[in-house]
């Protein structure tokens, strides 16, 4: 059965090539630029937050007087709330999602499964343009009279209702998230269909690179759970705009009171899968890179794929562990705790497989490998600290402290950021046909690694000492005054990490134009995208390849062609 697919011809004008492109490679790059832009915005917000926590009541250097003229450069309290709200929102929905899922998903899925494009190119293009509208709504909310949303990235009522945050900012936040949900759902439908229908002949599900496994499972979770968040923000918007009373309780609701906790249920039914939506692509990429650069077959690749699938399924059943402190019945908290703990089993299998892949490998410490090993380290820390939060008895103490902030930054920020950088360094030659500078990449890695560990380890320490998250000035409480020095340390680490991104920006822009020309296969890897020139031609493959072996065939002693790896198009040497 053949299907006339992707009938669009090669584009000729600037607009059709770079703006309204149907080409999955261009759309992937558009998402990459979009994500990197918002990564910068979110990062600047993080620095402002850190400054306020380390130097309460002091003016923000250099930019302070420009940004906050009314307070002589000091970040005002309401702005502080807005900053941590939008920092979270931007990083999760507008930086990680576009880079990991939008950019690598779009760029890699067709190339790595041997397809000419996504299943629905028009849908794909619209997905990006809708994401742009969403980003515009969010940035626009900053310029409304009362500023942007300030109810935390979770937007819990009553903080997010008209009682807690009047003004248009929170409403625009809801609309922006809804629109982004539409965009991501469209992308997810496309990814799932493409993987199911357009794998090259001979490629079974377990012959797919693990990157594709990660992106595919992410897309499935997105398609199922984004609509739940959509329903939540619709109801919140109705509360704010039309005066419904879903989330209003007590005196705020005139009669027949609503339930603020209802929003938490809806939010976390989506929110816990979202955690895995963000991390699964990074896991997939790391599972591949560890094998590629250890020059060894991925240890237990099938078990890794199945573990990721198990985690995907379990992730839908554990959302209640975010709500232990909402007076949930002990029967429920214990159920959710037990289900949460079962996730450790597939996670441990996955982790052991990573270590098994590294064991006795002839490791090449190229930049993608350094970043991948960074992910293994920080994800290990993030995962282990999660156990304390999944356990009811410890969570009651640690809930809403900086320990939580440190934990989720280790899993979501550090792991995903390092994973995203690994992917960027790895596929940059394929995307742009030029190599990035390895020395700068390694400098970038080490500064980032030291900086982020300083930040997030520090956060866990102050959290354990009792520092609450989201406080404008925690040091008004006497018992927290002693934490000012360590908060300063965290802020210096954050500054270091911020400065550490400059080599990356320079490297990225410089290599784009002046980098060394990339060969077709600079990393000596056998997956399908490396069988074609860098950058790939329009429509990727002149002939649709036939897949004859798995993606991780390295170091086979029977290989006689002078290489230590096999392309997926080659018959397995036995």
């Amino acid at each position, binding site marked *: 059965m053949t299907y006339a697919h992707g009938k669009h011809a090669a584009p000729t004008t600037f607009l059709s090539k770079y703006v309204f492109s149907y080409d999955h490679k261009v759309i992937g790059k558009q998402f990459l630029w979009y994500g990197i832009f918002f990564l910068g915005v979110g990062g600047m917000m993080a620095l402002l937050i850190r400054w306020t926590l380390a130097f309460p009541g002091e003016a923000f250097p250099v930019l302070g007087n420009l940004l906050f003229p009314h307070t002589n450069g000091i970040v005002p309290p309401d702005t502080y709330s807005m900053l941590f709200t939008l920092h979270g929102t931007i990083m999760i929905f507008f930086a990680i999602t576009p880079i990991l899922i939008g950019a690598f998903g779009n760029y890699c899925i067709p190339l790595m499964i041997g397809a000419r494009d996504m299943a629905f190119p028009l849908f794909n293009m619209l997905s990006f343009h809708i994401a742009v509208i969403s980003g515009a709504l969010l940035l626009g909310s900053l310029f409304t009279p009362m500023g942007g949303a300030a109810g935390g990235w979770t937007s819990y009522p009553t903080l997010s209702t008209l009682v807690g945050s009047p003004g248009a900012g929170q409403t625009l936040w809801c609309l922006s998230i809804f629109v982004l949900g539409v965009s991501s759902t469209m992308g997810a439908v*496309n990814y*799932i269909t493409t993987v199911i229908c357009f794998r090259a002949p001979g490629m079974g599900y377990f012959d797919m690179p693990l990157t594709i496994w990660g992106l595919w499972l992410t897309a499935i979770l997105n398609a199922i759970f984004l609509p739940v968040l959509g329903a939540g923000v619709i109801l919140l918007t109705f509360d704010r705009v039309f005066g*419904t*009373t879903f989330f209003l309780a007590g005196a705020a609701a005139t009669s*027949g009171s609503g339930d603020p906790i209802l929003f938490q249920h809806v939010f976390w*039914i989506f929110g816990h899968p979202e955690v895995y939506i963000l991390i699964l692509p990074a896991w997939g990429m790391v599972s591949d890179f560890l094998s590629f650069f250890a020059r060894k077959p991925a240890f237990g690749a099938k078990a890794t794929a199945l573990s990721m699938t198990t985690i995907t399924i379990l992730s839908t059943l554990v959302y209640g562990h975010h709500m232990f402190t909402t007076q949930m019945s002990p029967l429920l908290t214990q159920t959710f705790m037990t289900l949460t703990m079962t996730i450790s089993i597939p996670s441990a299998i996955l982790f052991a497989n990573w270590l098994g892949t590294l064991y006795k490998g002839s490791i090449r410490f190229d930049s993608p490998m350094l970043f991948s090993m960074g992910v293994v380290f920080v994800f290990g820390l993030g995962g282990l600290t999660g156990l304390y939060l999944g356990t009811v008895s410890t969570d009651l103490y640690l809930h809403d402290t900086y320990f939580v902030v440190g934990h989720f930054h280790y899993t979501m920020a550090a792991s995903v950021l390092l994973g995203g950088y690994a992917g960027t360094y790895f596929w940059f030659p394929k995307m742009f046909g030029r190599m990035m500078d390895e020395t700068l990449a390694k400098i970038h890695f080490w500064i980032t690694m030291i900086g982020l560990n300083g930040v997030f380890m520090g956060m866990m320490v102050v959290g354990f000492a009792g520092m609450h998250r989201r406080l404008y000035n925690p040091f008004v409480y006497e018992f927290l005054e002693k934490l000012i020095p360590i908060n300063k340390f965290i802020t210096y680490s954050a500054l270091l990490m911020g400065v550490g991104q400059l080599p990356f920006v320079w490297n990225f822009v410089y290599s784009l134009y002046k980098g060394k020309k990339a060969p077709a296969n600079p990393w000596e890897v056998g997956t399908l995208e490396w069988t074609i020139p860098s950058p790939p031609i329009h429509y990727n493959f002149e002939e649709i390849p036939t897949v004859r072996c798995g993606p991780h065939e390295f170091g086979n002693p029977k290989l006689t062609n002078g290489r230590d790896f096999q392309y997926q198009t080659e018959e397995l040497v036995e």
Partner: protein
Amino acid sequence: MAIKSMNINQTMKHPKEIAFTILMVSWVMLFAALFLAYALLRFKEAQWPPMGFEVVSLKWPIVSTIFVGLSSYTLFLFSKNFKSNVKKAKKYLYSTIFLGIGFLVSQKLLWNEMNATGLDVGSGTFASIIQAFSWVHAAHIVMGIIGLTWLLSFATKSDDLDFNFRVKHVSKFWHFLDIVWILMFVTMFLI
């Protein structure tokens, strides 16, 4: 470079069918979340409707149910006939669209009546959930009607594979909305 048609392997389903199935899952989840919200709000109350509220009159909900049920039936007849009998099919499609619009009108009258009897959205969760839920549903009915008008060119295209998928998918969407309304009708107005 010659653009060759793409090979579909390992599956007999057309990509459009798979994609639409996934989209339907998304919509099911959207409405499931709304039903969950409704269930949580309802079970929180000691009685339903809460103290001091009257049940909503069944007049307009029953009219809506008849409209949407009939429209599903005429759409079914359309999809049976659009290849063989253009005249009949045209009648059925127009009937479906008019019944759809009739559904929207009856919904508007329902909201008006609720507002007039003190069950405006601000009066509490009882009115909020009925009104907001039916707004979301009605917004999808509007999408459905747009989808139905997209089928009007059927006379010339009935042999086109893409068009056949369009008929199939718009019908599935419309029947889905019909089922959602019937669930809403039973859970919100009857019991």
